[in-house]
């Protein structure tokens, strides 16, 4: 069970430039249970976007976004709506956002923060990993997580050990920041590269407060308690 909570509206709206159109993708797996990716949440997000001058070209609820093959099939059926959008907003954990980014060559932005992944990385584990940092930065990194794609978890580009796309840590390992740079170039958003981001709030990464552990958003087995 991956536990997510919605990001503040201002942060989500901040991803979009004036008048940009959005396509909304949500995960019918964990995110639906957390009420970050259920129909109500998506409907409400759509209204917020329309009000702020961002047309919504379409929506899709896909069971377990972590399954990239399924994401590809479902989104290809909605090709016109997806292609008509400037940005894809994704309601899921960090794995789902990265799975969508891997399939669609467009800017992909998270609408939720992942705060816990219980015991597993998505139901269809692939190469995408989420550090459940609670402060998702995928909107700025082309949908590739710098915390898990870079062993050092850097936030501002490659370290000096990156050479021809390879990481210093082990031979053959791709440099996460090289991948991010290439992806941002591919989607025409190099303006997002090497923008200053303040140090992360590590409380969200290393600790889950008791109040949240007991909420419906913690895990399925605790839902009865509320």
């Amino acid at each position, binding site marked *: 069970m991956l536990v997510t909570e919605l990001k503040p509206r201002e942060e989500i709206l901040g991803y979009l430039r004036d008048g940009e159109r959005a396509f909304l993708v949500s995960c019918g797996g964990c995110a639906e249970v957390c009420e970050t990716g259920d129909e109500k949440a998506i409907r409400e997000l759509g209204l917020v976007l329309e009000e702020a001058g961002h047309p919504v070209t379409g929506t899709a609820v896909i069971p377990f976004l972590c399954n990239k093959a399924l994401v590809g099939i479902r989104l290809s059926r909605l090709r016109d709506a997806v292609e008509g959008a400037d940005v894809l907003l994704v309601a899921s954990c960090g794995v789902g956002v990265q799975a969508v980014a891997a399939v669609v060559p467009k800017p992909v932005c998270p609408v939720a923060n992942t705060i816990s992944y219980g015991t597993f990385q998505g139901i269809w584990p692939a190469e995408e990993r989420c550090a459940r940092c609670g402060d998702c930065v995928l909107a700025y990194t082309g949908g590739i997580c710098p915390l898990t794609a870079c*062993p*050092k*978890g*850097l*936030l*501002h*580009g*490659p*370290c*000096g*050990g*990156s*050479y*021809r796309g390879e990481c*210093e*840590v*082990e031979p053959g390992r791709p440099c996460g*920041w*090289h991948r991010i*740079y290439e992806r941002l170039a591919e989607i025409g958003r190099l303006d997002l*590269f*090497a*923008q*200053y981001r*303040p*140090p992360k709030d*590590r409380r969200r990464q290393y600790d889950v407060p008791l109040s949240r552990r007991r909420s419906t958003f913690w895990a399925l087995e605790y839902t009865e308690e509320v």
Partner: protein
Amino acid sequence: MRFRDRLANGDFVITCEAGPPKGADVGPALEAVRRLAPHVHAFNVTDLQSSVLRMSSWALCALIAREGYEPILQLTCRDRNRLALQADLLGAWALGIENVLALTGDYPTLGDHPDALPVFDLDSVQLIAAVAALNSGRDLAGNELEGETDFLVGAVVNATTDPLEPHLAKLRLKVELGASFVQTQAVYDPEAFVRFARAAESLGVPILAGIIPLKSAKMARFMDEHIAGIKVPEEIIHEMEGAKTPEERRKRSVEICARIIRAVKPYCQGIHLMPMGWEDLVPEILELAGI
């Protein structure tokens, strides 16, 4: 004259690495510093270089400062969180250390404690922001300090890496946040360095080109394959292979360094030497390079 004043004057400056000891005996390290001092304007003291445990950088910096020479504190993000980094910076300032070089740090698995926790709470860009905060009298959390620092903070870049663009974008951000000099990773390809220097000219900060003397073809190959961020062109490795005796190798190494320095000199404001135990070569290299 202080290192920062030389840079501001536009003087051509020479910095040299001083490695803290692997142990508690600082005698030989300080002896090397004393021998080099007539040739060098400031000493970069490394911070557990290649993730190999050594004495802390600030300690040798303080001892160098006590001898009347100027240290540059190398500080990496690998081993300390934001609290410890800021604490060490404040302590370093109190010990008379005025220059800091902010680095990411090699990954722990490359060193002799491969099982250590990698910290990286901040990255090198945020570390520069932390130094700028302390210089303005506040900590990273915005709290007011009793007495501010006035560090000169420098950044590193791998000038001859490929592709260069992402590294250049990161360097630009470091300069925007307060980095006021740049020291590069070892340069073995002067043409690549010149391409970098032209691209970095608009940043308007002094650049010191990194130089590491090669001890042998074997070392050259080892560095090329195993040292993070260092690439040695095949031609230079062949050149070292041609030197058969220790004397020939020494001579060849000095020649290669001097040749690289002469090639990059018009495009930089200084040289950063990393002799890796071959400190006695430094005067010969500088002399042959015409510095």
